[in-house]
């Protein structure tokens, strides 16, 4: 039931602000991605079900979807980052039964996946820790004022609130965040790895060559500043990770943190783009042991990011059906070959829903359906429905689909 007393929780980005008031097309506090999230989903843009582009009876659509998935040998389950943890559980359960490949969209979209973390680990913290403790916050090639507009305000790092705390931006672009920074270090986009290595060298008192504004002296000053802070934070995201070789740059960032951790408390925060990017990976990890690229075809989870990544498998023609849950694989994975049938669940029209054989127009989490998401720092946030929509959410629909395929969505 819609709860009109409690503020809405917003799925517009990884911040999942839970204090939002929605009035028509505008939300307060104002935020562009948040406004887009609500305005595109408050009034359903899709019919409840569609087969081959035509509105269809939901039962017939479930039968058609179940038929596609039952006939597939190597289906792909993709998305999950803009839906609930509950739906992700059901989707991974279905994938286990189908022997499917599972790829959460979060890391595909923001690059902030776990490959570097899997190798060496990471030091992380929830938003409140950074807000209340970090004296210096370095934002590495990100522009949160645009992508996560309320993040700096929530971390009390906007100019009005930050006082003596320092916001350092490493970027060669003149972004909104860079303009607001206490210090803007212009480092060329090709210089991230060298820049991070220069900082590691400075941390060890070794000589390093200049990378843009990050001269040996500037590197030393930044390292000294971090060391001098009791607590400091590094914010990173697609700027560092999204291009090829991204995990090596993210690895260098985590190694820098580890190097400095002997004398100060340094944490990182990955700026996840999608509201449930972290939650989808959490579910996949607890159910299978791996956060991404999980191939269940052999009857047990295998994950070798690269060889078992969805994009690789699609390119190799090794996927023969796609179940997309609040994702857009046609755009995000570089296309789905013609002839590979797609079953898509989404609250909005996308390139994928347009290409899909069967489409279910579902109620979005936090709008027409209740559910939990894990925001960018991993904190679970329960979202309630703020609008009455006469259609199921993703979880309910996936359970119905699993029932068509025989048995419950969740085995044990």
């Amino acid at each position, binding site marked *: 039931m819609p709860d009109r007393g409690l503020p809405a929780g917003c799925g517009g980005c990884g911040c999942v602000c*839970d204090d939002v008031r929605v009035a028509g097309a505008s939300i307060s506090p104002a935020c562009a991605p948040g406004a887009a999230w609500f305005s595109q989903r408050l009034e359903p843009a899709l019919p409840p079900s569609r087969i081959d582009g035509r509105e269809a009876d939901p039962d017939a659509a479930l039968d058609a979807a179940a038929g596609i998935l039952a006939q597939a040998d190597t289906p792909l389950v993709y998305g999950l980052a803009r839906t609930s943890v509950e739906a992700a559980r059901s989707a991974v359960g279905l994938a286990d039964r189908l022997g499917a490949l599972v790829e959460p969209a979060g890391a595909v979209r923001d690059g902030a996946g776990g490959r570097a973390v899997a190798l060496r680990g990471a*030091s992380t913290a*929830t938003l409140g820790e950074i807000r209340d403790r970090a004296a210096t916050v370095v934002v590495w090639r990100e522009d949160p004022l645009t992508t996560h507009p309320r993040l700096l305000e929530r971390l009390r790092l906007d100019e009005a609130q930050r006082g003596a705390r320092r916001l350092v931006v490493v970027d060669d672009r003149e972004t909104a965040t860079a303009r607001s920074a206490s210090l803007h270090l212009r480092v060329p986009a090709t210089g991230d790895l060298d820049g991070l290595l220069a900082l590691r060298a400075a941390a060890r008192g070794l000589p390093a060559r200049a990378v843009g504004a990050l001269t040996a002296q500037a590197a030393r000053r930044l390292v000294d500043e971090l060391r001098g802070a009791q607590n400091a934070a590094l914010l990173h995201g697609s700027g560092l990770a999204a291009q090829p070789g991204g995990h090596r740059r993210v690895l260098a960032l985590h190694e820098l943190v580890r190097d400095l951790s002997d004398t*100060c408390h340094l944490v990182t925060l990955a700026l996840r783009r999608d509201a449930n990017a972290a939650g989808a990976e959490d579910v996949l990890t607890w159910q*299978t042991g791996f956060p991404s690229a999980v191939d269940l075809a052999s009857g047990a*989870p295998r994950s070798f990011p690269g060889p078992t990544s969805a994009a690789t498998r699609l390119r190799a023609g090794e996927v023969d059906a796609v179940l997309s849950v609040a994702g857009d694989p046609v755009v995000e994975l570089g296309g789905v070959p013609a002839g590979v049938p797609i079953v898509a669940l989404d609250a909005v029209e996308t390139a994928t829903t347009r290409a899909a054989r069967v489409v279910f127009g579902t109620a979005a989490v936090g709008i027409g359906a209740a559910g939990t998401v894990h925001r960018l720092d991993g904190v679970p946030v329960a979202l309630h429905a703020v609008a009455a929509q006469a259609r199921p959410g993703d979880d309910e629909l996936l359970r119905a689909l699993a029932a068509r395929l025989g048995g419950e969505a969740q085995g044990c």
Partner: protein
Amino acid sequence: MLRIAGGRVHDPANGVDGAVADVCIADGRIVADVPGHARRIDARGMVVMAGGVDVHAHIAGPAVNAARRVLGGERRADVAMRDRVRRSGTGGTVPSSFVTGHRYALLGYTTVIDAAIAPLAARHALAELRDTPLIDPGFLILLGDNQVVYELIREAGGGTSQTLRDAVAWWLESTGALGVKLVNPGGAERWKRGNGRLTSLDEPVNELGVTPRQVLDALATAAHELGLPHPVHVHCHGLGVAGNARTTLDTMRTLDGRRAHLAHLQFHAYGGRPGGRPRSRAVDLVDALKAQPELTADVGQVMFGPATTITADAQISAVLRDSGDAAWISADTEVETGCGIVPYTYRPSSYTHALQWGIGLELFLLSPDPWRLVLSTDHPNGGSFLSYPRLIRLLMDREYRNDQLRRANEAAIRRTVLLDDLHREYSLNEIAIITRAGPARQLGLADKGHLGVGADADVTVYHDRADREEMFATPRYVIKGGEVVIDDGDLVAAPRGRLLRAGVAHDPEIERTLRPAFERRYTLGFDRYAVSEPWLLEPARRIPAAGERP
């Protein structure tokens, strides 16, 4: 309905020590008798015990899940196939959720308590536990570093208060937890400021206006006065540090007069000087435990081989990080706690590891009261729960133990009393106490850990084998809630368990105190903090406060 016929029953809670008897089951409970047409399991020559109860393990929640991410190598080598009843998954020292349930059941364990969940992450932990079949799970929430709790203690002049009692009961109700855990109180605050360890219980926790001793005292008193089914569960200061036994003994004195449980005592039983070589203080701790009958403990045995250290005592993780080159995770949770994770291997050739292993065995073998000092490896910190059968063999089989002692670092073993006159071998009844009856009693679970009429029908049937490791690793039958889940050695069903949570009343007015304190400190709205979603909380059994028990 089911009759387990003719087995030798070890049910120490009811004074049954190996008597040949039938165990009858109907509607998920132990009953006095069942009609002749009930299914009959022929248990002649076999050993019948209640299902195992793990008082302290780490199996769910964000910390455990983060550990899975850095353990890809070991899990790629240990995959578990899906089958008719089982979801697939992966193993290693921190198995995926389904596999955790399967493997506990395959050892005859049917109740497991996760000992460290940040309340802010309760939703995550509960969702994982929903995906952990075959066991009845419960968990303890971390309150010993909570800044709001500190405010309440400070306002009460450094002690407990009705407000604090209501707050503790509110927290249990709002998270679905069974009890309260304190980890090294004050340590997380120090860690997050990058300013080192606490060295004394009377050192102020930064500027928060409380000392670790006040936190211990206030929360132990609050839990005691609330009559929680399981008293405050304490991870003492200085885990793993030489000389920490002094603080452990000080903590025990501080807790005097209140019920409390000391977690993984082995890790807190070291003599010597900080930074120097540890020594064993097991004898002193056993004596101190003997003198304080209201205290219970679990051992936290170290087992040689791979482990994963997962702890809210993040400072010790930094020490382990710097001792090698393994992956390291640190995760700070606002207001509540820190967390550190480092994969680790215990080697018999290492002085420290062999000493830790030896101290655990000393604690077991010197302990006069198995009800109060029970089995754990602090899974996966001292080793996986999969090593319990080997640990049982070390306790039951002196020859095997002596053989293993000879393989361990000699200098370390000479620092223990294991080479003296410790001929003790645990009996099957004592094993039944330290693996089910004792933990169930410590946890306040009246329906678990025994086979009396009315108890939950969680039963394990073992072949009586001379090799105790093999015996306890391969139960012939396991019955969970009256359903046969291991039949003739095979997993045949994987039902979901029931959440075990405290049922303790609080004054709802406490929210008027907590709301502003939460809004000042947390980045999540107060109204979204408490868990109420039925899919996370049901089915459950509420374990009432001591005073409210029939």
